[in-house]
């Protein structure tokens, strides 16, 4: 029996569509894989224990990147410390308290716009507000605050999702026992949302650790031999270190291995953190019983 030509045409279109879909998936996987492989192949010879634990020497053409790792660690930690409480509280307001209406819609649009603002704008904002106006100077505090605002939308988004994921029946059960709304949120909603909030927020860590522009004017030092002793000290940071070595030094070609090594460390850290988040999340999903 002959297949009618309209049907054959339909099969052809369907086949073409699936081929395109597969192709896009392939392109993404290959480019990501290629990128990681490229970084690894160029960087792995440089990365060793000494590279991770020693400061740079000889005008940053030799030695390690320990101060930059430490600086990025402090900045990221500070950003999380700023953004997590603020983000969770905003999300609680938006999902639990605010009357769903035009005002909430405007706030949500605002949050989404904040997520789309180029990171250099955050850098200039941080420079203007924290470094100059509040006179914190270029330091961990200014950088952490700037990065905190940068990742705020991520944290708010993750927290809102997690809060919405807590079944309404839990809230009703608690309120029907004569427990106040705040206690219900604090004792029932938040504990059940927290794993989701934290894993979602870990993705913000990757962003905070990897950005250069926001810390360029607010926290990052070209080079400091001394490790920070307070949050008012300048620090080196991984992304800025890469930027400096690759663009501003007099030994750009010679320091390529160090650049790739630093990139490998940064990518490794960010991917590692993201993988942990994904792992925890799938673990929680499996364990969840509602």
């Amino acid at each position, binding site marked *: 029996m002959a297949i009618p030509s309209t049907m054959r045409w339909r099969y052809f279109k369907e086949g073409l569509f699936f081929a395109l879909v597969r192709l896009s998936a392939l392109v993404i996987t290959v480019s990501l894989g290629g990128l990681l492989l490229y970084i690894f192949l160029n960087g792995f010879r440089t990365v060793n224990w000494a590279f991770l634990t020693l400061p740079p020497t000889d005008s940053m053409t030799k030695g390690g990147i320990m101060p930059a790792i430490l600086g990025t660690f402090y900045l990221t930690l500070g950003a999380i410390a700023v953004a997590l409480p603020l983000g969770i509280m905003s999300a609680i307001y938006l999902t639990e308290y605010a009357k769903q209406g035009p005002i909430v819609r405007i706030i949500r649009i605002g949050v989404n716009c904040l997520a789309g603002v180029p990171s250099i704008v955050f850098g200039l904002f941080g420079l203007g507000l924290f470094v100059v106006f509040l006179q914190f100077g270029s330091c961990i505090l200014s950088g952490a605050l700037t990065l905190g605002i940068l990742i705020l939308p991520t944290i708010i988004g993750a927290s809102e999702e997690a809060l919405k994921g807590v079944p309404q*029946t*839990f809230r*009703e059960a608690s309120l029907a*026992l004569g427990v106040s709304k705040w206690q219900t949120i604090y004792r029932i909603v938040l504990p059940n949302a927290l794993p989701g909030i934290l894993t979602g927020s870990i993705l913000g860590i990757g962003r905070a650790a990897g950005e250069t522009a926001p810390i360029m004017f607010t926290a990052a030092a070209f080079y400091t031999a001394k490790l920070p002793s307070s949050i008012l000290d300048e620090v080196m940071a991984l992304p800025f270190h890469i930027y400096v070595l690759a663009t501003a030094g007099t030994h750009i070609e010679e320091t390529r291995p160090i650049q790739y090594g630093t990139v490998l460390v940064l990518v490794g850290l960010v991917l590692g953190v993201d993988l942990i988040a994904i792992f925890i999340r799938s673990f929680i999903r499996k364990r969840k019983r509602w």
Partner: protein
Amino acid sequence: MVTVEDTRVIYVKNVNFYYGGFRALTDITMDFEQNRVTALIGPSGCGKSTLLRLLNRMNDLIDGTRVEGEVIFEGNNIYDAKVDPVDIRRRIGMVFQKPNPFPKSIYNNITYGPRLAGLNNRIDLEALVERSLRQAVLWDEVKDILNQSAMMLSGGQQQRLCIARALAMKPDVLLMDEPTSALDPISTAKIEELIQDLKKLYTIIIVTHNMQQAARISDMTGFFYIGKLIEFNATEKIFTKPDHKQTEDYITGRFG
């Protein structure tokens, strides 16, 4: 003549209820007497749950709702501006259609409400847990696993745990919204039996979809149709010789 005033715990007086512009209850007047089981029946969407949730101000949680009329509980209108809904909900407990224990241990499910209400003594709490679970006829099944998650219990056990959790607040009234509709027949029978025991201590108002259930367990029955209370009478009368044709049609299964 004996006055009815003495025995009625809740008195609903000319109540209209609105979800935004939609009127879900029209001019409801009825009273609920002490140590009685009152059943609310009627086709789905007729406003049974709405009325039940009106009695412990759970409808407050929905944006845009409005109440007209009065709900008198122990002499006070619970919709009075100076009444705190939190207090009302401590005195009027509620059990939901789907069992909804917290993802906590059995013990902590029961002590959650009382603790936040200020009970902190461990010995008192333990006694309360045992008392509540015994009242809900769950004690023998769970007394050795009090620290296990409530989520591990069967549906019927979870629902009895939810009853125990409500009883732990020592309420005066227990509201139940189709408490057995998600359960198997054996669990249903257990809970029906339990309700018979509980009415000695509490005033019970139960919404049910199941006509036989209403006939078996209730003293009074209210029949609702499209937001109106069509008939409110002794259960026996409703199921043998109702005053209204509509009630009879519903009970005999001619519509619903």
